[in-house]
C-alpha cells in the first residue's frame, strides 16, 4: 500500500512540476484538472454522460463475458475446437480498434447497436483467449487424480477443470473490463450519436479545454481502476486458494 501511494505521489508530483512551466493550453496542472472535473460533476453533465456510456458498456461487456468465458472453456476442453478458433480470436485481438469503425457503422448503424457490437467484438477475444489458456493448462496430474478415483467426464469438468479455471475467469474479466472501457470511449469518440463520455471529451478538446479533457480521462481511468479493484476483491473471496497457485508459478500470469 505504501509503495502504491508513493508511486502515485511521484506521478502527481512530476505532472505538477511539468505543468509549472507550461501554459494552460499545454499541460494543465493537477489542481486545474480536478477543478474542471468538479465543475463537470456539479453541473450534472458528467453523471448524465456516464449513465449513457455505462449503458452500452454494461451491455457489450456482459455479452462479451457471457459468450467469451464459455467459448474459451469449450475451446480448452475440446482441443480441436480450440485449435480451429484460436487464430480467429488472435486476428480479432490484433485488429486495430478505430480502423474498422466505418465498417461497423455500415453494418450496425449509429445507434446503441453499433456500440454494443463494437465493445463486444473487442472484448470477446481477450476474454476467450485467457479462459482458453486456463482450461488448456489444467495440470495433467489433477485430471489423472480424478481418473484414478473413477471420475466421469462430467465430474472431471465440474470438479477439476472448472475450479482450476476460476482464477483465469477473473483474470479475463479484469482484462475484459479494461478493454471494454477503451472500446467504449473509442466508439463514442468516433460515432458521436450520443452524449456519453466520449462526447464530453470531443466537445472539450474542440474548445481547447484541456483541463476538462484530462479530467474526463482521469475519471475514466479511476472508473476502470475501481472496477478492477472490485473484481480483485471478489476474486480473493471466491478463490482464496489462488495465492497458492500463483506462488508456484502455475497461476494465471497471462
Amino acid at each position, binding site marked *: 500500500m505504501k509503495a502504491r501511494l508513493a508511486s502515485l505521489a511521484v506521478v502527481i508530483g512530476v505532472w505538477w512540476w511539468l505543468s509549472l512551466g507550461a501554459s494552460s493550453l499545454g499541460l494543465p496542472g493537477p489542481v486545474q484538472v480536478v477543478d474542471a472535473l468538479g465543475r463537470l460533476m456539479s453541473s450534472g453533465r458528467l453523471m448524465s454522460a456516464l449513465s449513457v456510456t455505462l449503458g452500452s458498456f454494461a451491455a457489450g461487456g456482459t455479452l462479451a463475458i457471457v459468450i467469451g468465458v464459455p467459448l474459451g472453456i469449450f475451446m480448452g476442453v475440446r482441443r480441436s475446437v480450440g485449435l480451429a478458433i484460436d487464430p480467429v480470436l488472435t486476428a480479432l485481438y490484433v485488429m486495430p480498434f478505430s480502423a474498422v469503425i466505418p465498417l461497423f457503422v455500415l453494418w450496425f448503424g449509429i445507434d446503441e447497436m453499433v456500440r454494443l457490437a463494437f465493445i463486444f467484438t473487442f472484448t470477446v477475444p481477450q476474454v476467450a483467449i485467457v479462459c482458453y489458456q486456463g482450461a488448456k493448462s489444467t495440470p495433467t*496430474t489433477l485430471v*489423472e487424480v480424478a*481418473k*484414478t478415483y473413477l471420475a466421469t467426464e462430467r465430474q472431471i469438468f465440474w470438479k477439476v477443470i472448472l*475450479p482450476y479455471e*476460476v482464477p483465469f475467469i477473473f483474470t479475463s474479466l479484469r482484462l475484459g473490463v479494461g478493454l471494454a472501457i477503451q472500446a467504449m470511449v473509442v466508439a463514442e469518440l468516433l460515432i458521436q450519436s450520443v452524449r456519453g463520455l466520449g462526447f464530453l471529451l470531443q466537445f472539450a478538446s474542440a474548445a481547447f479545454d484541456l483541463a476538462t479533457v484530462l479530467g474526463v480521462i482521469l475519471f475514466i481511468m479511476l472508473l476502470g481502476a475501481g472496477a478492477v479493484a472490485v473484481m480483485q476483491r471478489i476474486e480473493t473471496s471466491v478463490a*482464496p*486458494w489462488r495465492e*497458492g497457485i500463483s506462488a508456484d508459478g502455475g497461476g494465471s500470469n497471462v
Partner: protein
Amino acid sequence: MSDPSPKIVVDHVTKIYRTRKRRDTFLGRFLPDLRPTIRELKAVDDVSLEITTGDFVAIIGPSGCGKTTVLRMMDGLIFPDSGEVRVNGTPVLGPRAECGFIFQDFGLYPWRTVIDNVAFGPELRGVPRNVRYELARKHIDLVGLKGFETSFPHQLSGGMQQRVGIARMLSAEPEIMLMDEPFGALDALTRRTMQFELIRILAAEGSATSVFVTHDLDEAILLADKVVIMSARPGRVKEIVNIPFARSERGEALLETSMFAELRHHLWLGVHAEQPL
C-alpha cells in the same frame, strides 16, 4: 497371506512412446507439421511380474527405465502396446476401484481444503457429506494431520501435503496401493520421516498390496518385501531381490545393521551397472 493367487500380473508387457517431432529443416521451423516424423521410444520391453496379495514391492532402476510406466499401466492410466496387465484376474482397461495411486507431485486440488481433498474419492461415488467427512477425519488423524482439516494445500509443507495424498488414497479404501516416487519431491530429512510414517500408517491399516517406484535404495529396503531391479531403457526386469526383514523389524535400528548395508550394496551394484552417464 491367506490368498496366494497373484493380485497383479504383468504379462509380457511392452510399451512404446511415440512423439511427433517437427521436421528439423529450415522451413520446417516455420511451416506447420505436414509430414511429421514420429520418434519411437521403447520404454518397457517384455516385462513380466507377479505380485501376490499382501506383497509390498519396490521397483527401482536407473532414470528413464520405465518403472513409472509399469506402475501407471497397473493403474490403467496408460496401456501396453503388447502384453497385458491383470488385476484380480481381469485385464486392466482403465483405472479401477481396487487401486489407489499416490502421485510424486501430490496432485492435491489447491481449491479444496484438506478434508475435501481427502474425501474426494467418496465424494465422486456420491457418499453423503457427513459419512465421507467421518471417513476422511479418520484418515486425517491416522496420517497425523488432525487440526488441519480446513487448511488449504498451499498452507502445508511438502511432507504434510503428501500426508494428505496418503489419506486421500486410504479414504478410497483400495486393495492395492500404487505409489509413484511418493517421497521423491521431499527433502532428505522429511523423506526419512515419511518412510517411517508410511510403515506406521500401513501397519495400522492392515496389509494391503502395495507397489511403489523409488530412486531411494534405503527406502526400497526399508519398506518393501521384494525389490524389482529394472535395467536401463528399454526397461526389463533384471533381478528380484527378497528383503527378509519382518514388518516389526522395520525401524530406525534396521538402518544400522550389516544385513541392511549388504542389501543396499547389492541393490546399488544392480542399479549402478545400468545407470547411463
